């Protein structure tokens, strides 16, 4: 076979996910196809339990798919040996969750640095980058505060900076605004979109809020385990 030049961006083909439960198999995803170019941001909506989180976790290699492929810049991470998945995740993927999941024992700045500790990005570079990112999310005055001393929106912004510290290709955000009020949610999403645009990464965001989804170029809806492009 002639090696094809890797296509940049995210390609998902016939992705399925089935949980085997004692009560019987639960088919959550039944054949998802998706293409996203670098620099693009998409939103995924869908009723609760439709499988949005599951889809994001699979994209983020936190869970393996039952079948189908996921290509990030032409590479299928699930082809890697299991122990390399963590490395892949660390290098190429950034997560923002509904909960911020900041380490309470570390300062804001340190929290941003946590993903960089385990790869060979030079430390000073990472430190500088963390500072820049925090500046971009408007928290340069909070560098040495502990998460407990921040508001919910601020925490979420720290989590965003943390997601970008390793220059990932893919940022996955699972209802990042779920715990925030409208104002804060809008700020967070704006920041997120800015960051994505500036850093040229792919953003996949799951949300229940149409208002937030509207700010994205493409909106998908997930139901019956299928992804449907929503016409705007």
């Amino acid at each position, binding site marked *: 076979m002639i090696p094809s030049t890797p296509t940049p961006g995210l390609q998902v083909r016939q992705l399925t996910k089935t949980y085997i439960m004692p009560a019987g198999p639960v088919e959550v995803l039944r054949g998802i196809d998706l293409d996203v170019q670098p620099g693009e941001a998409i939103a995924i909506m869908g009723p609760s339990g439709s499988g949005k989180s599951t889809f994001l976790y699979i994209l983020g290699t936190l869970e393996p798919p039952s079948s189908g492929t996921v290509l990030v810049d032409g590479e299928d991470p699930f082809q890697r040996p299991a122990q390399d998945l*963590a490395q892949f995740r660390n290098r190429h993927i950034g997560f923002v*969750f509904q909960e911020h*999941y900041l380490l309470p024992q570390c300062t804001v*700045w340190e929290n941003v640095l946590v993903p960089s*500790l*385990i790869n060979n990005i030079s430390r000073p570079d990472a*430190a500088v980058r963390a500072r820049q990112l925090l500046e971009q999310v408007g928290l340069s005055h909070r560098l040495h505060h502990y998460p407990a001393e921040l508001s919910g929106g601020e925490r979420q912004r720290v989590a965003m900076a943390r997601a970008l510290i390793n220059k990932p290709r893919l940022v996955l955000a699972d209802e990042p605004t779920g715990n925030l009020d409208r104002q804060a949610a809008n700020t967070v999403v704006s920041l997120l979109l800015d960051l994505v645009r500036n850093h040229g990464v792919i953003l996949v965001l799951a949300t229940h809020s149409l208002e937030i989804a509207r700010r994205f170029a493409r909106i998908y809806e997930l139901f019956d385990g299928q992804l449907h492009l929503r016409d705007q």
Partner: protein
Amino acid sequence: MTLGKLWRRNLRYHRRSHLAILLGTVIGCMALTGAWLVGDLLRARMNALQQQRLGFIQYALTNSRFFTSTLAQRLATELDRPSWTVVPVVQLRGTVILRDTDGRILRHQNKIQVLGVPPEFWKLFAAPVPDLTGAVAVNQALARQLQLDQNALLEIRLPRPSIIPQETLAGRSIDETGTAWQASINIESRQVRTLIPAQQGGAFTLAPQSEEPYTVYLPLDDLQRRLRDALAVEAPANVVLVGTTEPQSSVEVSQLSEALHRAVRLEDYGLKLRIHHSPFQYASLETNRLLLEDELTQVAQDVAQELQWSARPTLTYLVNLIWSDDWPVVLSSALGTLAHDPTPLQAMLCWRMCYTYVPYLTVSVLDPSEDAPWGPFYSWNGQRWTRHLSPGEILLTEPAADDLWPVGSWQARLRQEQELPDVFVRYFVESSGWLLEEKTARLRVAGVLSWRGSAVDPGLTPEFPGLRGTSPADWQPPFPRSQWHPRWIRGADDLHWRRYRAAPRAFISAETARRLGWFSRHGQYTSVRLTTAAATNLDTTTVQAFAKHLLSKLDPQRQGFRWRHLRAEAEAAIDQGPLRMFRWLFLGFSVFLVGSALLLIVLLVRLQLLRRASELGVLSALGYSRGLLNRLIGTEFGIVLVLGCLAGIPAAVIYAWGLLLWIDKRWPTSVTLLSELSATEMRQYLLSPTLIAGWAVSVLAGGIALIWALRDLRRFSPRELLLGRFQAEISAAKPGHSRLRTIAFLLFSSILGLLIWVSGLRAAPQHVPLWFFASGGIWLVTSLAVVAWVLRQSKPDLVRHPWWLALGFRFLTRQPRRNFFTVTLLALTTFMLSAIEVFYKSPQSQVFAKESGTGGFALLAESDIPLPIVPKDLADWQAILGEDSAERLHNLLDALQRGQVHIYGFAVRPGEDVSCLNLYQPQQPRLLGVPARLRDRGGFRFDKVMPALESGSVNPWLALNATAASSDAIPVFADAHTAQWVLHLALGQTFPYAGESNGRLKLRLTGLLADSIFQGSLLISEENFRRHFPQHSGYAFFLIESSPEAPLEEITRCLESALGEKYGFSVRPTLEVLGQYHRVENLYLQTFQLLGAFGLILGAGGLAAVLLRNVYERQTELALLQALGYTPRMLACLVVVENALVVLLGFAAGLLAALVSVAPYLYIVGNITEPLKRLSIILAIVIGIGSLSGSVAIRHVLRLRMLALLRRE
């Protein structure tokens, strides 16, 4: 920011949880290392005590008989090691008496070690030589006991030692007044000039003993002078100590044995070769024991054969009375008993009227038909005697015949070839009672020998110390005064004695002697007569050559000499002693504690992980691999673990130290384990490899626990982690998950438990701890499996049960895994506490209960010098105290009568204490002979008696006399504690016991007494005792029965003042003795329970941690309940119910396991209520602790605002 910094951040952030883990680790490491260290320290301390006891002494040469002390010099010469010191010593037991100025006894102390030592003795301890001329030294222990100061005046009483086997006629040692069984040697007031500290020989004894000995030191030559007469040995000694100050120099036992063989002389064996010139030249081999052992006789004959000498073993016997015809007896019985105590009138009558008896004459066994050199013998009429003597015949000599019949009359009869009338001989036979058994035999007169030539031979009678003076009336035969009649002795006897000494006046054949019972078990002959073939040229040199040859043929060991390697013995006594058991048990219980600590660590680690689940989840999402997370978390906990173990080491040292100090303090007798520990010894222990090993093992065990606790990390799902839980946690909560497996497991473990339980029943006593812990372990696992099942399965119906129970149970079963951990922790603790609790012995308060440890006896007494009889009435008291003491006796008898006192005397073979008070393994336990009276009376409680005997008879004491048909073993009783923990013997087992003169006896354990005052000794029946230990005559151990209202103190005082001085008699209340045993036994248990208490702390810690976590996790749940109308008090109630359920389950599991595994070793089932009562107190405490932590937890929750909690969801 680095990973290292992240660790530090983590450690700091979770410091409270880490601190808890650290504490668990410290306790675990402390328990493990400490247990080890306690054993080590005890051992080291006991070794140091042994070092102190022995000084530079390595070996001791002992002999139950005395030998000449010059043997020591000869040994040194033969050994030829200038750096070695060889010291002869006399070692005896005695009593010391301290009087006030008026001569009244102030204090006295029996069971004293009296040492006669030469100046070189002190060299063995590198101590200054005290000046003892005309004075004594005492060791500090005795000085303390008697509150002596220097210059105090001490009197010393020693039982007069005897070298002659006591049951032989000549062997009875009787005091000058003939009223005491064993005479004592009194050493009148001596000034105490020196106090000997323990390090300078003050602790010296031959065998290790826990208590400091009480010792009096006398100059060797001084003591020897006192003993010389009694022993017929010139400078007697009974021990030779061999030692060196040079640590590198060593000597083998074989070298010593060879040196001894070369150095030993006949006199060391108590033998001598006496040369006689008349009636011909011969030598006689005699012993100061009077009877030559048959083996010696044989060796002498063999040597004679080799050297072509002629040898004749000879027995000469003392006959009390010989008379012709029986009419004088008829006459005398009409007048009164001749035999017992004829009045002077009766004796005179017999003598004057009849002339028909000869008193106290010697009779020899020989063959009168022999040729030269042993013959020839001539008949009275000058004819050569050629005939062998037939059985039942006696051959008289002229002097004897003249005494029996009117001179001339017997010759006339013989000339007419008429037979002479039969004669009667009356003589003593060997017997063990106070009064000798006297027998009479009728013998046919074979003829009369002419009193010349070979017939006149004083050499036939061996030298005997009692035969001296100018008349036989001066003799001091070892007979009770009432059986010795010097008044019978006539002028003719005096004349004979003066001219011919104790030359025999009649002869019988060996067969006749056998029939008369003259041959003793200890030796048939009194001498072996030896001569060269020609019976000439027998001078000292030839005799010496014979002696040399004889010596080369004699084995010193067979003659009672024994080399003892005292150092090795001490080591063995320590290593095989109760210490070993204690170490085992302590380590075993500590393992349970360590297990608890590990469990707690696992629990705490898991709880912390659970709290940090989302942290781990996000790190994982951020690309931290599993391996990295494992390392991150592992290192974090590892640091805590290593630090905890490091802190555990000093804790272990303090703990071990404190424990020993505590034991020291509470030990009832004066044994000091630690107080005299020197700094260098200290340092040595503190740098011991034990600490490093303990640390390493703790880290290892902790590491394994950690890996186990972290194993859930291996199969986490980041998604679950992010949700704040572990997959394992969820799957474990699934009900019905492995019912079959549980049932199979329960089946398997109960069968295994049953097997172990049954084998534990028949296990050898020294393996009991192993079986006990195995059984305890398996039953714990089994009962915990049941608990686990209950936790998983039961879901009480919300409708049918009260809300608090149903909800409480729901709470309980919601987190089955962690609650199970707590239950296990508590079960372990309960197991430890209750397994020990049931063995506790509560003090006995009822002295007079017959079926109890005291047997209903209020007082117990011991005497240094055995009482010949157990006094019952005035005559008995007079017999043992002398008739002149009538005045004193009346008071005594009065007092005794008022108290209605009965005294039971036991024969005693001295030996080592086998009670729990002895920290060393006894080699030769003390043996008591139980009198038939006690057997008939019954009493005491029995744990077990041999089943065959139990069924038929109601009185278990009868088992002492039962002899199993199949074996020749002597039935013996022991205290159950002694059998189990000290002797390691099971019921029915036989074991060897050193009997008399190198003999080995077989004893069979046929009965176990429960918790009795006999813990220090073994018991056999008096009949068996007398048969097998005849040289220990009399009674030296007493139980005193009195009516409950008797004035015990007065009785004690009376008895001690009457018997204390003469017999070294001291009285103690039985309750005190029993209490001492209990204190020691309970002390052991308390040390084990200390471990249980630590376990309790761990359990409570675990309980609190789990409760806090549970409450924390359920904040919203509780908030909801509150929103639904539950009051805070109801919520608290729920928490308390849950906690109580955990405690009860843990307690039940632990108690069940403990009771089941303890059951086979539970001696006293009747006493179970007492321990149960204490156990329920412990239960209450545990529930209290649980409730306290529960209420803390609930208060914590109720502080949070409920609505805030609810809104957060």
